[in-house]
Protein backbone atom coordinates (compact mmCIF):
# COMPACT_ATOMS: atom_id res chain seq x y z
CA UNK A 1 0.00 0.00 0.00
CA UNK A 2 1.42 3.38 -0.82
CA UNK A 3 1.66 6.27 1.55
CA UNK A 4 -1.31 8.21 0.34
CA UNK A 5 -3.58 5.19 0.66
CA UNK A 6 -2.43 4.76 4.24
CA UNK A 7 -3.10 8.41 4.91
CA UNK A 8 -6.51 8.33 3.27
CA UNK A 9 -7.46 5.14 5.09
CA UNK A 10 -6.57 6.43 8.53
CA UNK A 11 -8.22 9.78 7.94
CA UNK A 12 -11.42 8.05 6.87
CA UNK A 13 -11.38 5.74 9.90
CA UNK A 14 -10.92 8.78 12.10
CA UNK A 15 -13.78 10.65 10.40
CA UNK A 16 -16.15 7.74 10.93
CA UNK A 17 -15.30 7.63 14.63
CA UNK A 18 -15.74 11.38 15.05
CA UNK A 19 -19.07 11.26 13.27
CA UNK A 20 -20.46 8.37 15.31
CA UNK A 21 -19.37 9.85 18.64
CA UNK A 22 -20.74 13.27 17.74
CA UNK A 23 -24.13 11.88 16.73
CA UNK A 24 -24.37 9.46 19.66
CA UNK A 25 -23.67 12.23 22.16
CA UNK A 26 -27.04 13.85 21.55
CA UNK A 27 -29.13 10.68 21.77
CA UNK A 28 -31.91 10.56 24.32
CA UNK A 29 -31.55 14.27 24.94
CA UNK A 30 -34.27 16.77 24.37
CA UNK A 31 -34.01 17.70 20.69
CA UNK A 32 -36.11 20.85 20.95
CA UNK A 33 -34.64 22.57 23.98
CA UNK A 34 -32.58 25.72 23.54
CA UNK A 35 -30.92 25.03 26.87
CA UNK A 36 -29.84 21.55 25.80
CA UNK A 37 -28.65 22.69 22.37
CA UNK A 38 -26.78 25.73 23.63
CA UNK A 39 -25.39 24.75 27.04
CA UNK A 40 -26.17 21.01 27.50
CA UNK A 41 -28.66 21.89 30.26
CA UNK A 42 -25.67 23.26 32.22
CA UNK A 43 -24.46 19.75 33.06
CA UNK A 44 -21.29 18.78 31.18
CA UNK A 45 -18.84 16.51 32.99
CA UNK A 46 -15.29 17.31 33.94
CA UNK A 47 -13.29 15.32 31.37
CA UNK A 48 -15.57 16.52 28.62
CA UNK A 49 -15.34 20.17 29.53
CA UNK A 50 -11.57 19.94 29.88
CA UNK A 51 -11.07 18.40 26.46
CA UNK A 52 -13.59 20.74 24.98
CA UNK A 53 -11.78 23.83 26.16
CA UNK A 54 -8.43 22.35 25.20
CA UNK A 55 -9.51 20.88 21.90
CA UNK A 56 -11.02 24.15 20.88
CA UNK A 57 -7.73 25.90 21.42
CA UNK A 58 -5.74 23.33 19.47
CA UNK A 59 -6.91 24.35 16.05
CA UNK A 60 -5.47 23.93 12.60
CA UNK A 61 -3.02 26.49 13.90
CA UNK A 62 -1.36 23.84 16.06
CA UNK A 63 -0.33 21.71 13.12
CA UNK A 64 0.10 24.31 10.40
CA UNK A 65 0.41 27.84 11.80
CA UNK A 66 2.43 27.03 14.93
CA UNK A 67 5.23 25.16 13.17
CA UNK A 68 5.17 27.79 10.42
CA UNK A 69 5.64 30.54 12.95
CA UNK A 70 8.51 28.74 14.67
CA UNK A 71 10.15 28.15 11.30
CA UNK A 72 9.89 31.71 10.05
CA UNK A 73 9.73 33.87 13.21
CA UNK A 74 11.68 31.89 15.81
CA UNK A 75 11.18 33.02 19.39
CA UNK A 76 8.09 35.05 18.47
CA UNK A 77 6.28 31.70 18.41
CA UNK A 78 6.83 31.33 22.18
CA UNK A 79 3.87 33.66 22.57
CA UNK A 80 1.54 30.78 21.72
CA UNK A 81 2.16 28.57 24.77
CA UNK A 82 2.49 31.76 26.84
CA UNK A 83 -0.89 33.25 26.03
CA UNK A 84 -2.77 29.97 26.22
CA UNK A 85 -1.66 29.43 29.79
CA UNK A 86 -2.36 33.04 30.75
CA UNK A 87 -5.64 33.32 28.89
CA UNK A 88 -7.51 30.77 30.97
CA UNK A 89 -6.39 32.04 34.39
CA UNK A 90 -9.10 34.71 34.88
CA UNK A 91 -11.72 32.00 34.31
CA UNK A 92 -11.20 30.75 37.85
CA UNK A 93 -12.96 33.87 39.12
CA UNK A 94 -14.87 34.96 36.02
CA UNK A 95 -16.37 31.59 35.07
CA UNK A 96 -18.28 30.83 38.30
CA UNK A 97 -19.61 34.39 38.43
CA UNK A 98 -20.84 34.32 34.87
CA UNK A 99 -22.20 30.82 35.37
CA UNK A 100 -24.22 31.86 38.45
CA UNK A 101 -25.68 34.90 36.71
CA UNK A 102 -26.43 32.83 33.64
CA UNK A 103 -28.21 30.09 35.55
CA UNK A 104 -30.29 32.59 37.49
CA UNK A 105 -31.27 34.67 34.48
CA UNK A 106 -31.35 31.89 31.91
CA UNK A 107 -28.59 33.21 29.64
CA UNK A 108 -27.04 31.28 26.79
CA UNK A 109 -24.72 33.77 25.09
CA UNK A 110 -22.41 36.66 25.72
CA UNK A 111 -24.94 38.96 24.08
CA UNK A 112 -27.55 37.92 26.68
CA UNK A 113 -25.10 38.75 29.41
CA UNK A 114 -23.96 42.17 28.18
CA UNK A 115 -27.38 43.15 26.85
CA UNK A 116 -29.02 42.54 30.22
CA UNK A 117 -26.32 44.15 32.33
CA UNK A 118 -26.18 47.32 30.26
CA UNK A 119 -29.87 47.22 29.40
CA UNK A 120 -29.18 47.59 25.71
CA UNK A 121 -30.46 45.50 22.87
CA UNK A 122 -28.08 47.29 20.51
CA UNK A 123 -25.14 45.96 22.49
CA UNK A 124 -26.46 42.41 22.17
CA UNK A 125 -26.74 42.74 18.42
CA UNK A 126 -23.32 44.38 18.11
CA UNK A 127 -21.63 41.62 20.09
CA UNK A 128 -23.56 38.99 18.14
CA UNK A 129 -22.58 40.44 14.77
CA UNK A 130 -18.90 40.83 15.56
CA UNK A 131 -18.85 37.30 16.98
CA UNK A 132 -20.46 35.76 13.93
CA UNK A 133 -18.05 37.54 11.57
CA UNK A 134 -15.06 36.56 13.68
CA UNK A 135 -16.31 32.98 13.82
CA UNK A 136 -16.58 32.80 10.06
CA UNK A 137 -13.00 33.98 9.70
CA UNK A 138 -11.83 31.44 12.29
CA UNK A 139 -13.72 28.70 10.47
CA UNK A 140 -12.33 29.70 7.12
CA UNK A 141 -8.85 29.12 8.50
CA UNK A 142 -9.81 25.70 9.85
CA UNK A 143 -11.49 24.59 6.65
CA UNK A 144 -8.49 25.65 4.59
CA UNK A 145 -6.35 23.61 6.96
CA UNK A 146 -8.50 20.49 6.59
CA UNK A 147 -8.63 20.80 2.81
CA UNK A 148 -4.92 21.32 2.62
CA UNK A 149 -4.05 18.31 4.79
CA UNK A 150 -6.38 16.06 2.83
CA UNK A 151 -5.06 17.26 -0.47
CA UNK A 152 -1.35 17.08 0.22
CA UNK A 153 -1.28 13.81 2.15
CA UNK A 154 -3.28 11.97 -0.49
CA UNK A 155 -0.96 13.23 -3.23
CA UNK A 156 -3.76 15.33 -4.68
CA UNK A 157 -6.11 12.39 -5.14
CA UNK A 158 -8.71 14.07 -2.95
CA UNK A 159 -9.23 17.54 -4.40
CA UNK A 160 -9.21 20.62 -2.24
CA UNK A 161 -12.96 21.23 -2.35
CA UNK A 162 -13.92 17.65 -1.59
CA UNK A 163 -11.64 17.17 1.42
CA UNK A 164 -13.04 20.32 2.99
CA UNK A 165 -16.61 19.31 2.21
CA UNK A 166 -16.20 15.85 3.68
CA UNK A 167 -14.50 16.84 6.92
CA UNK A 168 -16.51 19.95 7.55
CA UNK A 169 -19.78 18.39 6.44
CA UNK A 170 -19.37 15.82 9.21
CA UNK A 171 -18.78 18.58 11.74
CA UNK A 172 -21.93 20.41 10.67
CA UNK A 173 -23.96 17.20 10.83
CA UNK A 174 -23.12 16.36 14.40
CA UNK A 175 -23.27 19.93 15.64
CA UNK A 176 -26.71 20.47 14.12
CA UNK A 177 -28.11 17.26 15.59
CA UNK A 178 -26.38 17.06 18.96
CA UNK A 179 -25.61 20.70 19.78
CA UNK A 180 -22.90 21.43 22.30
CA UNK A 181 -22.86 17.82 23.50
CA UNK A 182 -21.87 16.60 20.05
CA UNK A 183 -19.05 19.11 19.86
CA UNK A 184 -17.89 18.26 23.38
CA UNK A 185 -17.80 14.48 23.06
CA UNK A 186 -16.10 14.44 19.70
CA UNK A 187 -13.54 16.79 21.22
CA UNK A 188 -12.58 14.11 23.71
CA UNK A 189 -11.58 11.81 20.85
CA UNK A 190 -9.98 14.62 18.87
CA UNK A 191 -8.13 16.08 21.83
CA UNK A 192 -6.62 12.79 22.88
CA UNK A 193 -5.64 11.96 19.32
CA UNK A 194 -3.91 15.20 18.55
CA UNK A 195 -1.99 15.28 21.81
CA UNK A 196 -0.54 11.89 20.99
CA UNK A 197 0.22 12.95 17.45
CA UNK A 198 1.78 16.29 18.37
CA UNK A 199 4.25 14.70 20.76
CA UNK A 200 5.09 11.74 18.57
CA UNK A 201 5.59 13.80 15.45
CA UNK A 202 7.34 16.70 17.16
CA UNK A 203 9.97 14.57 18.83
CA UNK A 204 10.25 12.16 15.91
CA UNK A 205 11.10 15.00 13.53
CA UNK A 206 13.62 16.55 15.89
CA UNK A 207 15.45 13.28 16.42
CA UNK A 208 15.43 12.28 12.74
CA UNK A 209 16.41 15.62 11.29
CA UNK A 210 18.48 17.31 13.98
CA UNK A 211 19.80 14.71 16.41
CA UNK A 212 18.28 16.08 19.62
CA UNK A 213 16.60 19.26 20.87
CA UNK A 214 19.84 20.46 22.44
CA UNK A 215 21.84 20.00 19.24
CA UNK A 216 19.04 21.55 17.25
CA UNK A 217 18.76 24.77 19.26
CA UNK A 218 22.53 25.11 19.55
CA UNK A 219 22.84 24.83 15.78
CA UNK A 220 20.04 27.31 15.13
CA UNK A 221 21.58 29.81 17.50
CA UNK A 222 24.95 29.42 15.80
CA UNK A 223 23.64 29.97 12.28
CA UNK A 224 21.01 32.59 13.15
CA UNK A 225 22.06 34.61 16.20
CA UNK A 226 19.11 36.42 17.79
CA UNK A 227 16.52 34.19 16.11
CA UNK A 228 15.70 32.46 19.40
CA UNK A 229 15.28 35.67 21.38
CA UNK A 230 12.96 38.67 21.30
CA UNK A 231 13.89 42.22 20.44
CA UNK A 232 17.62 41.75 19.77
CA UNK A 233 19.70 41.92 16.60
CA UNK A 234 18.46 39.17 14.34
CA UNK A 235 15.20 38.72 16.26
CA UNK A 236 11.98 38.62 14.32
CA UNK A 237 9.84 40.55 16.79
CA UNK A 238 10.29 43.58 19.04
CA UNK A 239 9.81 43.42 22.79
CA UNK A 240 6.78 45.72 22.56
CA UNK A 241 5.10 43.72 19.82
CA UNK A 242 5.73 40.49 21.71
CA UNK A 243 4.40 41.78 25.03
CA UNK A 244 1.30 43.39 23.57
CA UNK A 245 0.37 40.41 21.43
CA UNK A 246 0.51 38.24 24.55
CA UNK A 247 -1.62 40.70 26.49
CA UNK A 248 -4.26 41.05 23.81
CA UNK A 249 -4.46 37.33 23.08
CA UNK A 250 -4.53 36.38 26.75
CA UNK A 251 -7.11 38.98 27.76
CA UNK A 252 -9.16 38.33 24.65
CA UNK A 253 -9.02 34.56 25.09
CA UNK A 254 -12.11 34.22 27.28
CA UNK A 255 -13.95 36.82 25.22
CA UNK A 256 -14.32 34.33 22.40
CA UNK A 257 -18.02 33.62 22.79
CA UNK A 258 -17.60 29.88 22.34
CA UNK A 259 -15.27 29.84 25.35
CA UNK A 260 -17.12 32.46 27.38
CA UNK A 261 -20.42 30.60 27.10
CA UNK A 262 -18.81 27.41 28.42
CA UNK A 263 -19.21 29.10 31.79
CA UNK A 264 -22.89 28.31 31.43
CA UNK A 265 -22.37 24.64 30.63
CA UNK A 266 -21.03 23.30 33.88
CA UNK A 267 -20.58 23.79 37.62
CA UNK A 268 -18.32 26.08 39.62
CA UNK A 269 -16.12 23.23 40.79
CA UNK A 270 -15.59 21.92 37.29
CA UNK A 271 -14.75 25.37 36.00
CA UNK A 272 -12.06 25.65 38.64
CA UNK A 273 -10.59 22.22 37.97
CA UNK A 274 -10.55 22.91 34.25
CA UNK A 275 -8.70 26.17 34.82
CA UNK A 276 -6.28 24.32 37.04
CA UNK A 277 -5.36 21.75 34.43
CA UNK A 278 -5.29 24.19 31.57
CA UNK A 279 -1.78 25.61 31.79
CA UNK A 280 -0.69 22.07 30.94
CA UNK A 281 -2.18 22.54 27.49
CA UNK A 282 0.36 25.28 26.93
CA UNK A 283 3.11 22.76 27.65
CA UNK A 284 1.50 20.21 25.35
CA UNK A 285 1.91 22.73 22.55
CA UNK A 286 5.68 22.96 22.84
CA UNK A 287 6.49 19.93 20.62
CA UNK A 288 4.33 21.51 17.94
CA UNK A 289 6.84 24.34 17.75
CA UNK A 290 9.61 21.74 17.52
CA UNK A 291 8.24 20.74 14.13
CA UNK A 292 9.00 24.20 12.79
CA UNK A 293 12.41 24.47 14.45
CA UNK A 294 13.39 21.04 13.16
CA UNK A 295 12.95 22.26 9.61
CA UNK A 296 15.48 25.08 9.97
CA UNK A 297 18.54 24.24 7.93
CA UNK A 298 16.69 21.33 6.35
CA UNK A 299 14.12 23.19 4.29
CA UNK A 300 15.06 26.33 2.39
CA UNK A 301 12.64 29.15 3.29
CA UNK A 302 11.89 29.87 -0.37
CA UNK A 303 10.88 26.26 -1.02
CA UNK A 304 7.49 27.01 0.54
CA UNK A 305 4.65 29.13 -0.75
CA UNK A 306 3.73 29.94 2.83
CA UNK A 307 5.42 28.99 6.08
CA UNK A 308 2.18 27.28 7.17
CA UNK A 309 3.00 24.42 4.82
CA UNK A 310 6.08 23.40 6.73
CA UNK A 311 4.70 20.27 8.40
CA UNK A 312 3.15 18.72 5.29
CA UNK A 313 6.25 19.70 3.35
CA UNK A 314 8.54 17.95 5.82
CA UNK A 315 6.40 14.85 5.83
CA UNK A 316 6.15 14.53 2.10
CA UNK A 317 9.70 15.58 1.21
CA UNK A 318 11.97 14.59 4.03
CA UNK A 319 10.45 11.48 5.55
CA UNK A 320 9.87 9.43 2.41
CA UNK A 321 8.65 6.01 3.24
CA UNK A 322 6.72 5.93 6.48
CA UNK A 323 3.04 5.29 5.79
CA UNK A 324 2.07 5.12 9.45
CA UNK A 325 3.44 8.57 10.07
CA UNK A 326 1.44 9.88 7.13
CA UNK A 327 -1.75 8.44 8.52
CA UNK A 328 -1.07 9.63 12.03
CA UNK A 329 -0.36 13.17 10.96
CA UNK A 330 -3.37 13.25 8.69
CA UNK A 331 -5.76 12.11 11.38
CA UNK A 332 -4.17 14.32 14.05
CA UNK A 333 -4.27 17.44 11.93
CA UNK A 334 -7.86 16.80 10.91
CA UNK A 335 -8.77 16.26 14.54
CA UNK A 336 -7.19 19.56 15.51
CA UNK A 337 -9.02 21.49 12.81
CA UNK A 338 -12.32 19.75 13.46
CA UNK A 339 -12.30 20.09 17.23
CA UNK A 340 -12.10 23.84 16.83
CA UNK A 341 -14.58 24.03 14.00
CA UNK A 342 -17.29 22.18 15.88
CA UNK A 343 -17.18 24.45 18.90
CA UNK A 344 -17.01 27.52 16.70
CA UNK A 345 -19.78 26.46 14.37
CA UNK A 346 -21.89 25.73 17.40
CA UNK A 347 -21.02 29.03 19.05
CA UNK A 348 -21.71 30.91 15.85
CA UNK A 349 -25.11 29.32 15.41
CA UNK A 350 -26.14 30.17 18.96
CA UNK A 351 -24.86 33.75 18.66
CA UNK A 352 -26.65 34.19 15.35
CA UNK A 353 -29.96 32.87 16.61
CA UNK A 354 -29.90 34.35 20.06
CA UNK A 355 -28.05 37.65 19.71
CA UNK A 356 -28.61 38.73 16.14
CA UNK A 357 -32.05 37.39 15.18
CA UNK A 358 -33.96 37.01 18.45
CA UNK A 359 -33.72 40.71 19.49
CA UNK A 360 -35.69 41.64 16.38
CA UNK A 361 -38.46 39.21 17.16
CA UNK A 362 -38.40 38.63 20.92
CA UNK A 363 -41.64 36.62 21.07
CA UNK A 364 -40.26 33.64 19.15
CA UNK A 365 -41.09 30.27 20.68
CA UNK A 366 -38.40 27.84 21.73
CA UNK A 367 -38.90 25.42 18.87
CA UNK A 368 -38.40 28.18 16.31
CA UNK A 369 -35.25 29.33 18.12
CA UNK A 370 -33.75 25.87 17.99
CA UNK A 371 -34.64 25.63 14.33
CA UNK A 372 -32.98 28.95 13.61
CA UNK A 373 -29.84 27.81 15.38
CA UNK A 374 -29.74 24.59 13.42
CA UNK A 375 -30.26 26.45 10.17
CA UNK A 376 -27.56 28.82 11.41
CA UNK A 377 -25.12 25.89 11.52
CA UNK A 378 -25.72 25.24 7.86
CA UNK A 379 -25.69 28.93 6.90
CA UNK A 380 -22.48 29.75 8.75
CA UNK A 381 -20.93 26.52 7.58
CA UNK A 382 -21.79 27.22 3.95
CA UNK A 383 -20.51 30.79 4.17
CA UNK A 384 -17.20 29.72 5.67
CA UNK A 385 -16.86 26.86 3.21
CA UNK A 386 -17.42 29.06 0.17
CA UNK A 387 -15.05 31.72 1.47
CA UNK A 388 -12.29 29.22 2.10
CA UNK A 389 -12.61 27.57 -1.29
CA UNK A 390 -13.31 30.58 -3.48
CA UNK A 391 -12.08 33.48 -1.33
CA UNK A 392 -13.23 37.08 -1.72
CA UNK A 393 -10.72 39.78 -0.94
CA UNK A 394 -13.16 42.44 0.31
CA UNK A 395 -15.00 40.15 2.68
CA UNK A 396 -11.76 38.68 3.98
CA UNK A 397 -10.62 42.09 5.25
CA UNK A 398 -13.93 42.50 7.05
CA UNK A 399 -13.58 39.10 8.69
CA UNK A 400 -9.94 39.53 9.66
CA UNK A 401 -10.86 42.80 11.37
CA UNK A 402 -13.69 41.14 13.27
CA UNK A 403 -11.38 38.32 14.31
CA UNK A 404 -8.98 40.85 15.81
CA UNK A 405 -11.87 42.70 17.45
CA UNK A 406 -12.91 40.00 19.89
CA UNK A 407 -10.57 41.36 22.54
CA UNK A 408 -12.56 44.60 22.42
CA UNK A 409 -15.26 42.91 24.52
CA UNK A 410 -12.88 42.93 27.49
CA UNK A 411 -13.80 46.31 29.04
CA UNK A 412 -17.54 45.70 28.77
CA UNK A 413 -17.38 42.19 30.24
CA UNK A 414 -15.03 42.96 33.12
CA UNK A 415 -16.81 46.28 33.61
CA UNK A 416 -20.07 44.41 34.10
CA UNK A 417 -18.57 42.31 36.85
CA UNK A 418 -16.57 44.86 38.80
CA UNK A 419 -17.74 48.37 37.98
CA UNK A 420 -21.20 49.25 39.23
CA UNK A 421 -21.37 52.59 37.44
CA UNK A 422 -20.56 51.27 33.95
CA UNK A 423 -23.29 52.43 31.55
CA UNK A 424 -24.54 51.28 28.19
CA UNK A 425 -23.32 54.39 26.38
CA UNK A 426 -19.86 53.90 27.81
CA UNK A 427 -19.78 50.22 26.91
CA UNK A 428 -21.09 50.71 23.38
CA UNK A 429 -18.96 53.77 22.62
CA UNK A 430 -15.83 52.08 23.96
CA UNK A 431 -16.48 48.94 21.96
CA UNK A 432 -17.24 50.80 18.74
CA UNK A 433 -14.11 52.94 19.06
CA UNK A 434 -11.98 49.94 19.98
CA UNK A 435 -13.22 47.96 17.01
CA UNK A 436 -12.75 50.93 14.70
CA UNK A 437 -9.20 51.56 15.86
CA UNK A 438 -8.40 47.88 15.55
CA UNK A 439 -9.74 47.79 11.97
CA UNK A 440 -7.75 50.86 11.08
CA UNK A 441 -4.41 49.62 12.36
CA UNK A 442 -4.91 46.05 11.25
CA UNK A 443 -6.02 46.74 7.71
CA UNK A 444 -5.40 50.34 6.67
CA UNK A 445 -2.33 51.61 8.51
CA UNK A 446 1.17 50.42 7.71
CA UNK A 447 2.45 50.42 11.27
CA UNK A 448 1.26 51.06 14.80
CA UNK A 449 2.49 53.50 17.46
CA UNK A 450 5.56 52.06 19.25
CA UNK A 451 5.10 48.80 17.34
CA UNK A 452 2.22 47.82 19.63
CA UNK A 453 -0.23 45.17 18.57
CA UNK A 454 -3.22 46.67 16.68
CA UNK A 455 -5.69 45.06 19.06
CA UNK A 456 -3.82 46.50 22.02
CA UNK A 457 -4.05 50.03 20.66
CA UNK A 458 -7.77 49.43 20.16
CA UNK A 459 -8.11 48.16 23.69
CA UNK A 460 -6.42 51.21 25.18
CA UNK A 461 -8.72 53.56 23.22
CA UNK A 462 -11.67 51.37 24.18
CA UNK A 463 -10.99 51.67 27.90
CA UNK A 464 -10.37 55.42 27.73
CA UNK A 465 -13.61 56.04 25.85
CA UNK A 466 -15.55 53.77 28.20
CA UNK A 467 -14.28 55.61 31.26
CA UNK A 468 -14.77 59.08 29.78
CA UNK A 469 -18.32 58.31 28.72
CA UNK A 470 -19.22 56.96 32.10
CA UNK A 471 -17.61 59.92 33.82
CA UNK A 472 -19.76 62.20 31.70
CA UNK A 473 -22.88 60.18 32.27
CA UNK A 474 -22.40 60.11 36.03
CA UNK A 475 -24.76 63.09 35.98
CA UNK A 476 -27.38 60.91 34.36
CA UNK A 477 -29.28 58.04 35.89
CA UNK A 478 -27.28 54.78 36.42
CA UNK A 479 -28.79 51.32 35.92
CA UNK A 480 -30.91 50.23 38.89
CA UNK A 481 -28.65 49.66 41.88
CA UNK A 482 -30.12 46.23 42.58
CA UNK A 483 -29.25 45.06 39.09
CA UNK A 484 -25.67 46.32 39.25
CA UNK A 485 -25.30 44.64 42.65
CA UNK A 486 -26.46 41.36 41.29
CA UNK A 487 -23.46 41.42 38.96
CA UNK A 488 -20.75 42.69 41.25
CA UNK A 489 -21.82 40.42 44.11
CA UNK A 490 -22.44 37.24 42.15
Amino acid at each position, binding site marked *: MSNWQFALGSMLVYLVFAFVIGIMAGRKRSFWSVSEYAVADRGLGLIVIWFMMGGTVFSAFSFLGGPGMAFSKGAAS*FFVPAYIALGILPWY*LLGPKVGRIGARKNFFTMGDFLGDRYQSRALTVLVGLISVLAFIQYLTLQIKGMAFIFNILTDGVIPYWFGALLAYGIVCAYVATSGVRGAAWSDVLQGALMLVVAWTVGYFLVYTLQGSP*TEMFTAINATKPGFLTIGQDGSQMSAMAYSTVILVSALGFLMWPHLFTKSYTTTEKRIKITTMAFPLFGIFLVPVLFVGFAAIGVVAPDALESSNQILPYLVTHNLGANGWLYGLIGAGALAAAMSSSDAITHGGSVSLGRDVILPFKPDMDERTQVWIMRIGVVAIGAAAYCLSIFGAAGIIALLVGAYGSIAQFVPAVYGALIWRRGTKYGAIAGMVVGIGVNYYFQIVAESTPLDMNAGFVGLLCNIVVFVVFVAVSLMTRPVPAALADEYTNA
Partner: protein
Amino acid sequence: MDNSRTRNVTKPYIIFVVVIFLLMIFPLYGLANRVFPLVLGLPFGLFWVVLLEVIAFVALCCFYRYEYGNGGRS
Protein backbone atom coordinates in the same frame (compact mmCIF):
# COMPACT_ATOMS: atom_id res chain seq x y z
CA MET B 1 -24.05 31.78 48.16
CA ASP B 2 -21.17 31.64 50.60
CA ASN B 3 -19.56 34.85 49.57
CA SER B 4 -17.17 34.95 52.46
CA ARG B 5 -15.23 32.02 51.05
CA THR B 6 -15.10 33.43 47.52
CA ARG B 7 -13.89 36.76 48.79
CA ASN B 8 -11.10 35.04 50.64
CA VAL B 9 -9.30 33.83 47.55
CA THR B 10 -10.29 36.60 45.19
CA LYS B 11 -7.60 39.05 46.22
CA PRO B 12 -4.67 36.63 46.42
CA TYR B 13 -5.82 35.08 43.18
CA ILE B 14 -5.84 38.41 41.35
CA ILE B 15 -2.34 39.14 42.64
CA PHE B 16 -1.19 35.72 41.48
CA VAL B 17 -2.61 36.28 37.98
CA VAL B 18 -1.04 39.73 37.68
CA VAL B 19 2.36 38.38 38.75
CA ILE B 20 2.26 35.54 36.21
CA PHE B 21 1.21 37.98 33.48
CA LEU B 22 4.04 40.35 34.32
CA LEU B 23 6.64 37.58 34.33
CA MET B 24 5.51 36.56 30.86
CA ILE B 25 5.94 39.98 29.24
CA PHE B 26 8.64 42.62 29.01
CA PRO B 27 10.34 44.16 30.93
CA LEU B 28 10.41 41.18 33.33
CA TYR B 29 10.56 38.62 30.55
CA GLY B 30 13.83 40.29 29.62
CA LEU B 31 15.42 38.29 32.46
CA ALA B 32 14.74 35.11 30.54
CA ASN B 33 15.18 36.42 27.04
CA ARG B 34 18.22 34.37 26.02
CA VAL B 35 19.16 31.07 24.50
CA PHE B 36 21.60 29.66 27.03
CA PRO B 37 21.56 27.78 29.28
CA LEU B 38 19.49 25.24 27.41
CA VAL B 39 17.22 23.47 29.91
CA LEU B 40 15.67 20.12 29.00
CA GLY B 41 16.80 20.89 25.47
CA LEU B 42 14.80 24.11 25.38
CA PRO B 43 16.19 27.60 24.84
CA PHE B 44 16.00 29.46 28.14
CA GLY B 45 13.25 31.81 26.90
CA LEU B 46 11.00 28.88 26.06
CA PHE B 47 11.91 27.00 29.23
CA TRP B 48 10.84 30.10 31.19
CA VAL B 49 7.39 29.92 29.61
CA VAL B 50 7.09 26.22 30.42
CA LEU B 51 8.32 26.81 33.95
CA LEU B 52 5.72 29.52 34.56
CA GLU B 53 3.06 27.16 33.28
CA VAL B 54 4.12 24.50 35.75
CA ILE B 55 4.14 27.10 38.52
CA ALA B 56 0.68 28.29 37.47
CA PHE B 57 -0.56 24.70 37.59
CA VAL B 58 0.86 24.10 41.06
CA ALA B 59 -0.46 27.42 42.35
CA LEU B 60 -3.93 26.67 40.99
CA CYS B 61 -3.87 23.28 42.71
CA CYS B 62 -3.11 25.08 45.97
CA PHE B 63 -5.92 27.59 45.48
CA TYR B 64 -8.32 24.81 44.73
CA ARG B 65 -7.22 22.74 47.69
CA TYR B 66 -7.54 25.71 49.95
CA GLU B 67 -11.11 26.27 48.80
CA TYR B 68 -12.39 22.71 48.59
CA GLY B 69 -9.69 20.38 49.88
CA ASN B 70 -9.21 18.66 53.23
CA GLY B 71 -7.58 21.66 54.84
CA GLY B 72 -10.18 24.13 53.63
CA ARG B 73 -13.89 24.55 54.15
CA SER B 74 -15.92 22.59 51.65
